[in-house]
């Protein structure tokens, strides 16, 4: 597994952990008053530390940081993430209308939450696009 793949795998892990924090952990703590928030933050911190350590370990001393193929894969992943960003933004614009109605309003404190959620999902799409492309190329080589 090269550096780009490891980076994509760790980014997927961190984004999934953060999304779970927002979707599952915070609502559970609010409803049941079980203290999972702090434990979850420890899990995320540990994951980040382990990821950084593993990312710095090279397969061999001669391993380059990235090559031409990695660049092509990353560029394709950016395009996929960019397209998904617009789909998500359209959804983020219309879902509140469906929930509160055409003449409703949403608190401004929700805007950073919505935008951060979109950012996390886009990063997840970017990482998954990288991993899928490496998977495909690996199969082609076989």
């Amino acid at each position: 597994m090269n550096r780009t793949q490891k980076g994509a795998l760790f980014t997927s892990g961190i984004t999934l952990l953060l999304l779970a924090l927002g979707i599952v952990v915070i609502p559970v703590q609010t409803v049941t008053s079980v203290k999972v928030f702090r434990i979850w933050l420890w899990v995320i911190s540990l994951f980040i530390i382990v990821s950084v350590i593993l990312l710095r370990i090279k397969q061999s001393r001669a391993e380059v940081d990235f090559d031409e193929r990695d660049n092509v894969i990353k560029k394709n992943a950016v395009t996929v993430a960019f397209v998904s960003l617009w789909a998500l933004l359209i959804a983020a614009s219309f879902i509140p209308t469906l929930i509160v109605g055409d003449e409703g309003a949403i608190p401004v404190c929700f805007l950073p939450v919505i935008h951060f959620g979109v950012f996390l999902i886009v990063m997840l799409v970017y990482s998954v696009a990288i991993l899928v492309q490496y998977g495909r190329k690996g199969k082609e080589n076989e």
Partner: protein
Amino acid sequence: MNKTQKSAWLNTAGVLLVFAFALYITIQIGVRHRPPERILLCIWVSALVLVAGIGIYFFRRKQSPAEPESDERDNLIKHRAVLAAFVSVWPLFLTASAIPKFIVGASGSIPVFLLPIVTVCIFYFALLVYSVAVLIQYGRIAKGEES
């Protein structure tokens, strides 16, 4: 001028026209509390039709019958421009999250119909960044070829 450059010019002109119109509407309705003037609306629609017409005409006209739709260099330039647009979207998100707080306060609310408008503004800005990035890269490459 190849097809990618032409479409970048067309996008830039279209986006600037839309921004100018949005600015005029905001000032007219939001600040002056008056309906937009019909003559200016007519001028704007005519300008938009003119830009679209000229754009489509030049877009369809090839430099030569052998001109390809796009080559390796065009693809590279477009990929880099997408990256530039992608990066530019995130500061806009931060701005779009922070500005309403300053206007209505931290505990205030905004109407939901504003959300699609914000999204469209961010989209047009990203399109502008994309087109300008394409044009800058072609400009640089042309300069490199001259020297």
